[in-house]
């Protein structure tokens, strides 16, 4: 197989994930796009391992080992990422990353503040509802 096929597919998948990370607003959709980028890297690793195990008689199989490590790290990343997103949702009532501007620079401090309190108003209510629902 021509090596350009998996390499080009991997590059295109990576850029698709890049677009998703940059353009999406929901934090979980951003995590999905990160998964796409990680998978593009995995495809590259596997393809180059299949090439080098013959061409260079590589017996380490470093590409496949690193792909497995990437899969495991991606699983850990998605667990932690979702826990963070859920914690942010419980505190703020939204998982929209465009609204999480508390540490943004170059903005009028009144503007995000009033915006934040306006957005935050339903958050404790939602948390309270959740507590009642779980109780």
């Amino acid at each position: 197989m021509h090596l350009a096929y998996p390499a080009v597919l991997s590059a295109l998948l990576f850029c698709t994930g890049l677009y998703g990370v940059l353009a999406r607003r929901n934090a979980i959709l951003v995590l999905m796009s990160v998964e796409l980028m990680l998978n593009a890297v995995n495809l590259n690793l596997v393809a180059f391992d299949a090439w080098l195990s013959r061409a260079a008689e590589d017996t380490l199989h470093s590409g496949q080992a690193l792909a497995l490590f990437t899969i495991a790290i991606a699983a850990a990343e998605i667990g932690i990422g979702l826990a963070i997103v859920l914690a942010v949702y419980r505190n703020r009532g939204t998982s929209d990353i465009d609204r999480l501007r508390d540490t943004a620079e170059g903005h009028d401090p009144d503007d995000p503040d009033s915006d934040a309190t306006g957005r935050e108003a339903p958050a404790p209510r939602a948390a309270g509802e959740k507590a009642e629902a779980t109780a």
Partner: protein
Amino acid sequence: MTLAAAAGTAAHATTTTAAETHGFLSPTGVEIAFLLVGLVTLGAAIITVTTRQLVHAALWLVVALGGLAVEYLLLTAEFIAWVQVLIYVGSVVVLLLFGLMLTRAPIGRSPDADSGNRWVALAVSVVAAAALVWVVADAFRTTWIDLDGAPSGSTEVTGASLFQHWVLPFEALSVLLLAALVGAIVLSRKAKDGAATGARATRRDSEGVR
């Protein structure tokens, strides 16, 4: 030229001359299968990042990841293909769906799924894709993967190399997974039992701020 004719000439070329003369315009059957599955994968990935229905995005992600598993099989990496199916399609997508439900994502079309800088993001990704594809295609124009013979990624081969050469990173990874497990539990637990008292406290806080 039809695909069948292309496959026929490709088979002819591969049978007559073994590995010396590969042609751009004579793809083998594996390459055609890789191309078709790759198109499906790329299309599913593009729908994943552009659809406005959040749950559909997760389901199209399943198609993209499953297509990648097929690509691994075509690259003779069986073990990674099944690990991909188990971990990504099995657990990561389920976790993402749980996350979507727990954050009460809207089920129908949500018009604000994409942010305002979508066109900048599109320009950045198209430029990056053009640059990467150009560089990669130019660099590996004359490189072929030899997929004949014993598979390079069967469970036996992968396991032997993993536990002969990669034992220390493997163990470090298990520690990392344990840390991630504990971290995820701590992150989600604190919010949970702090919800009853913490919600009241934050309400009082926000009223005090106001």
